[in-house]
């Protein structure tokens, strides 16, 4: 806990000499930790927690990914030799892993634009509405506050071969049905996640819309700009920081995908067409007992997300920084 170490000389750097200065020295030494040093004590549980449960495992993940790591009984000392990039080579040459990255690409291509477009449109409409405001907001947030496991049940019911959706579509219904069709499984999962998470992103956009001054719309209206002109020229640029955040968070959600494919498509079916990287991590790491390979996959996945986030920030961020 280097934060609390009171070593080092508090007076260094201060000009020496001068009676007034010398008189101040004892007071300063007493306040080396600041006027309210108890703040350190108040922060300590949080700092210790972050170091032990977040920072240490982060480094441990990288360590595991570079070693021949396997599960043992607790407190058994075994030799875990350093293997360099072996785990990375194993994981990147695995066709199932390659397929899972492709799947997540399909997911992001469908999910991110839909999320950004729909949540901005709906938030914009919600921001202007005066009647039934509460009802509409409530209805958009309900899927977000409900457990995925619960709503997955009803989607399984709706999207099965003889489910309500196919009944409505009649001859247009796809065979094999949505979630067991290798072309449609991942897009259906992406639609489900968009629907499930949209309320949260609408909330973010609503907060951002509050920051656009009314005067801008007023003057645009005076200049004869219609609603579309106002939307494209005032609203869209006005919420750009929120758009950066929404794309980033939607990407992270996609990269963390596990529950939905696990339950909707019975663990990434048909034939791995909807397996997500986190699902493969679970399978390789915990079911098949190769935590080292799974950790390497985690590192690759996170690097991928960071790269995508950087590109997105360039594209959406514009002149933000």
């Amino acid at each position, binding site marked *: 806990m280097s934060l609390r170490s009171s070593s080092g000389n508090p007076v260094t750097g201060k000009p020496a000499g001068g009676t007034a200065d010398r008189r101040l020295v004892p007071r300063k030494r007493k306040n080396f930790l600041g006027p309210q040093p108890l703040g350190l004590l108040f922060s300590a549980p949080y700092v210790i927690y972050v170091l032990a449960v977040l920072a240490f495992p982060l480094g441990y993940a990288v360590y595991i990914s570079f070693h021949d790591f396997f*599960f043992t009984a607790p407190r058994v000392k075994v030799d875990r030799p350093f293997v360099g990039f072996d785990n990375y080579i194993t994981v990147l040459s695995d066709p199932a892993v390659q397929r899972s990255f492709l799947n997540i690409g399909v997911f992001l291509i469908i999910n991110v634009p839909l999320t950004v477009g729909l949540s901005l449109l709906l938030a914009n409409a919600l921001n*202007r*509405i005066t009647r039934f405001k509460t009802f509409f*907001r409530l209805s958009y947030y309900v899927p977000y506050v409900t457990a995925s496991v619960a709503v997955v049940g009803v989607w399984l019911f709706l999207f099965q071969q003889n489910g309500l959706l196919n009944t409505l579509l009649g001859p247009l219904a796809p065979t094999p049905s949505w979630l067991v069709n290798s072309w449609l499984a991942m897009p259906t999962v992406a639609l489900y996640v968009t629907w499930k998470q949209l309320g949260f992103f609408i909330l973010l956009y609503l907060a951002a819309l509050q920051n656009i001054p009314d005067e801008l*719309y*007023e003057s645009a209206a005076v200049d004869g700009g219609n609603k579309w002109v106002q939307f494209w020229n005032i609203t869209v640029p006005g919420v750009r920081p929120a758009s950066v955040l929404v794309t980033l968070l939607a990407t992270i959600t996609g*990269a963390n995908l596990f529950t939905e494919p696990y339950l909707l498509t019975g663990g990434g079916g048909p034939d791995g067409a909807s397996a997500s990287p*986190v699902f493969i991590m*679970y399978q390789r790491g915990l079911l098949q007992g190769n935590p080292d390979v799974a950790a390497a996959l985690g590192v690759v996945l996170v690097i991928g997300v960071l790269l995508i986030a950087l590109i997105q920030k360039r594209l959406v961020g514009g002149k933000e920084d």
Partner: protein
Amino acid sequence: MSVTNAQNAKNDDDASRRPEPPEPVLRPGSGVEKRRNLGVGSFILLGVGAFVFLFPFYYMLIGSLQTAPDTSIFGAFPNPANITGANYVQINESINLFRGLLNSGIFTGGVIFFTVIFGLLVGYALAQMKFRGRGVVFGMMLLVQMIPFQLLLIPLYVMIVRDYGLADSFLGMILPFAINSTAVFVFRQYFLQLPSTLFEAARIDGASELRILWQIAIPLVRPAIVTAVLLTFIGPWNEFLWPFLVTKEQSLQPLAVSLANFISNIAGQAGNPFGAILAGACVLAAPAVALFIFFQRQFISTNIGSSVKG
């Protein structure tokens, strides 16, 4: 607009900096009035959207009450001849619903407890106490929000389940979620809004920091506690992956985990699998939805949105 013209010209520059812009004057035919009134198109958009968002929940309830699954269009309407409570009995026989709800409650309650206690302490310290290393703690809080869970999954499993032997225990379930940095951020924002002179005065009067926090600061930020509880509740109540990895013993599983196991393993053998799944889904969804509707004001005030946005 002639009345406000002069004022507008003067205020134009700092309009964006003002915390709360004055209420715009609504007058028939003015630009603001037009903006506030929704076109029919937008209203239809919102209506269709609301239907798409709410229908699955309605269908969940209808489906959970059907004796035999009816996937025709008529199945979407209540049919007195096809209503039963048997699905709830059936799911309760496969997975103990009460036990599952209790486990979910303990897990969620533990997470909220740690988040609020430690979050208030560090939030108050960051906002109203000057101490060495405050900047480091603040920077840490911002960084933590960017740590991806995919990276932590394997090492946390190795540490918590293998090394510490906390599998099938509530502590093992709670630990990775115990302090939510978003909640810390919410607390800090609320404490920052309080005037620091208030705390200076209390310090001069000789009150200890803990006493100031307990008797002055916390009573003033009750809404922050509500916000943090709501924000934190959704996470563990709906969380699946981590408790699924940690608990193998059914009597300790939160409802989300036991219902998921029912969906993927047992449902096929049930007489009316969808009815049973949907009945379980209703039981799992009900507490969160009820809490949300009860506290909708706090959700809708966009407080949560702006605090998450940072």
